[in-house]
């Protein structure tokens, strides 16, 4: 369990990083927290020619919580995002989801942006980026570009970014007004990858009737999936909403695979259960926030 030989570069500017990535070609890999990459290296499942360590790049360890949303720099560790009261105030899903990311030791090293770039459909932050309709900022030799989540996630462990590029940050839009969120997972052991997970957003109108209910799931598809469940509960108050109907709707919309830890059927059951439970929580929060705002 020792990695194959690889080169190592630790650039101190984004330009320098892009230069190394350009000269090394497809064999180069960006290293941030290393919590996914290094095990792959040690098991020789990945053998990059060069690791481009971005930990010395300045200005990427920031959390910027503004009115529109939260921007998370590429060197922000999960633990820092989890502890950010400001980020939670703008988009509560960030802390709720991050609390489910692995264990403290991994959260201390692993980065939020790194886990998004890793594009694992079992990852919490990929789903949160999708559910919040977020995007990433990518530095390329041609200048920075912004890529929305739908375009960014292409397949399991695969993004649309090719060629020399460094993802500089991820942007998570703010929770809309009169909305609530919830996030829940079922994992075999505390901190494991979720067998299934769900994040939801529920929005109500001024009469506290539901206008939107959306959910994103973990470990049910090849890429993060967002499903609109509004039709099952639209126009209802949160107390009279048939959340189980929304769960049943979601169950029909997903097409999960089975693996060692869960059959596809069991995942569908969890989609229904987690949808029902998280929507109820998010609906209650939406009402609370609507009342507070009015």
């Amino acid at each position, binding site marked *: 369990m020792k990695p194959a030989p690889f080169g190592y570069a630790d650039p101190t500017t984004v330009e320098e990083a892009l230069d190394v990535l350009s000269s090394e070609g497809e064999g180069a890999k960006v290293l941030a927290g290393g919590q996914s990459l290094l095990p792959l290296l040690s098991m020789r499942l990945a053998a990059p020619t060069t690791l481009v360590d971005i930990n010395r790049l300045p200005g990427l360890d920031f959390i910027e919580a503004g009115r529109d949303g939260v921007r998370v720099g590429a060197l922000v560790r999960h633990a820092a995002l989890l502890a950010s009261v400001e980020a939670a105030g703008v988009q509560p899903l960030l802390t709720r989801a991050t609390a489910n990311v692995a264990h403290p030791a991994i959260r201390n090293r692993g980065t939020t942006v790194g886990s998004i770039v890793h594009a694992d459909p079992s990852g919490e932050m990929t789903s949160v980026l999708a559910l919040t309709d977020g995007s990433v900022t990518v530095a390329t030799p041609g200048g920075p570009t912004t890529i929305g989540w739908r375009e960014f996630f292409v397949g399991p462990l695969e993004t649309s970014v090719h060629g020399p590029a460094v993802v500089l940050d991820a942007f998570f839009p703010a929770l809309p007004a009169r909305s609530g969120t919830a996030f829940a997972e079922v994992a075999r052991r505390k*901190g494991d990858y979720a067998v299934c997970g769900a994040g939801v957003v529920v929005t109500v109108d001024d009469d506290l009737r539901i206008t939107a209910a959306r959910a994103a799931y973990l470990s049910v598809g090849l890429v993060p999936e967002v499903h609109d469940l509004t039709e099952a509960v639209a126009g209802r108050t949160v107390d009279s909403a048939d959340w189980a109907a929304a769960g049943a709707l979601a169950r029909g919309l997903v097409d999960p695979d089975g693996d*060692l*830890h869960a059959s596809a059927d069991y995942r569908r059951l969890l989609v229904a259960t987690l949808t029902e439970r998280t929507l109820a929580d998010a609906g209650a929060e939406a009402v609370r926030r609507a009342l507070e705002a009015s």
Partner: protein
Amino acid sequence: MTTKLFGEPVRRREDARLIIGQGRYLDDIGADAHAAAFLRSPYAHARVVDIDVTGALDVEGLLAIYTYADLTGPLAEPLPVLIPHPQLTHPRTGYPLAKDVVQHVGEAVVMVVATDRYVAEDAAALIEVTYEELPVVVGVDAARAALHAVHEDVPDNVAARHHQETGDVAVALAASAHTLSFTQYVERSAAMPMEGKGVHARWDADDKALRVYTSTQASTSVRAAIAAKLQLSLEKVEVIAPDVGGGFGVKIVHPWPEELLVPMAAIALGHEVKWTEDRREHFISSAHERQQRQEITVGYDDGGRVTALDVHIWHDNGAYTPYGIIIPIVTATQLVGPYAVPVYRVQVDSVFTNTVIVTPYRGAGRPQGCFAMERTMDRIAQERGIDRAEVRSRNLIQVDQFPYDQHLTFQDGRPVIYDSGDYVGLMDKLKALIDWDSVVERRADAEARGRLLGIGMAMYVEGTGPGPYEGGHVQVLGSGKVLVSTGLTSQGQGHETVFAQLVASELGVPMEDVEVTTGDTRRFGYAVGTFASRAAVMSGNAVALAARGVREKALRIAADVLEAEPADLVIEDGLVQVKGVPGTSIPLRTVAVLSNPLRYAFDEAAKQATQFAGPGDNSKPPVAVGDAPGLEHTDYYSPIRSTFASGAHAVVVEIDPATWEIDVVQYAVVHDCGNVVNPMIVEGQVHGGVAQGVGGALYERMAYDADGQLQNASFMDFLMPYASEVPPVVIDHQETASPLNPLGLKGAGEAGVIPGSAAIASAIEDAVGRRIAAMPISPTELYDLVRSSAADRVTNTDPTLPTLNTGAMA
């Protein structure tokens, strides 16, 4: 500090060292050693057609490549069958490096030695082995069906048919008022110590001597094996078990191929060589345990009393049988547990599969035996409409029946005679501890919270402390320090503490003056090893006897000096004194000095023992006939047969009927290991065992596919429970001294793991009303079970319980 420490919860003296990173584990040794890496078979069953190493030869830093063709003499022969048995008719073992055929994924084919492990793995990756694939046999059912042969010369894949019976079971079954027959399964798991295996070897070319460090549970036997296989004289081989990061059985197997090949390379290269097993290697090339198919027929009367028991077990022994049929024997003999079974017949067919070898993992066949018997008790209870605890109580061996002869032959070749016990007491304590009779209210409370609650229990008897022997050496130095050594090894159990407690108590010295060494053949050459819950019983009694020998000699010498009778002397806090005469005393360290008559003084203390130091008795030689210089004694403990510890576990589970997640919310243990030397250490052993029991019941399995590829060979997918998955454990002790050994001890090491699967299966079954006939069980499997129309519905007619929650699944 008091010197009477037996029974005290003395804090573990090894912990400070181990938890702050000051432990010295295998990989901490030999920073400059060359590194070995192994190329292992990617196929479960294949013929090795060709090995082409040319691609690796140019790797800078490569030092040597070994294949089977490079092995000579005894090394080229199959690895030993460690425990032969007449019923093991077709033993098979592999070679240190595969000869013609590989029998499981992970079998070593090539060893590469290089300047470091990275380079060794680089070179190994460039070696090309051509295989011709052969049909693969995976799982006990496939082995039993025998459509393909694992070893072409072994009929029906059967290595052994182990058989024992205590009467004519056919007649007894025919005469039984009721009978039940059923089949159930237990899945594979594994010991999975935090530290894998590892070997470091250093050859001294001038002395022609070999020193080997290995992460083992049996250093003396590894030494003998290395000497034999490498054709070295025994006195030229030293084997030392350094700090060992857990064993749980897997490290009792020896010699592992690496324990022979690494020393072989060290000698050939004239340089230290080290191999540290990585986790994937541990998964695919060490050992697993537990898979069995159990076919059970039981006869019983109207009251639920067992009248006959007929058991046929199919035991998956993996690709080879280096450890013989110990697990089948243990399952067969421990199955009957605390119960009086009038007529019992058991057959265990031990079958080959193309998977990692199966050797003892903590419990060593007992969890499966317990699963068979305890699930039988549950079935009888359900069938007769009697409370599960009551059915067990009606079948228990009573206190006045000890010693109780089960008329079986145990793993040590000796009769299964339960030395002592109080199983009725265990049951009473357990029911109180878990509040067995309050389950109706608790079930209602859980239902109100939307959860299904179930309760289960399981009892066991564990044969512990098998022979043949262990020894102990105790020596008092002139400094007052007391050196204790025993040959068996330690893997974190707390031996340094317990053996020091025993010696301090026996000898009357402060515990801090006592230093304990284990598993170092330089200090103690005769030993068997650490397994089968035997360390306290075997080495505990041996070091206690050795300490008694030292005490006797000390009193004899001190009596001379103090002009008193030995019987009038006591030793307290390291001081020998005349009872009731304060001030008439001599320090034990001075006795140690005087015990060794000297010509040469090398320090102040030594002067006292020189020939002109005082008037001697010229009528006697300085060292009496039959005596020896030095205040030291070696003694051995060899038991007539095993001791039998016992216990009972009860568990409460809550299940979420919308996710089928299973929470163990209460876990109660009543434990009887005879006299307890250190209750804190016993409780620690129980906690660890329970954790592994919960793992085996709810999380761990070896997910082999049909091609014999292990799908979950990492800690990401092999779900060893974290601390967060292990429930709080409440423990009550019962102490029924063993009459078989001087200290009255029984073993405690494995007990905690034994009843886990049985008790948890019982509780889940109680909660969901469906038969649990295979363990472990995961939420996704439980979901399948409750949806399956084919699954047995359990109709519980237990008057103390409400109708089971079968409606919840409708």
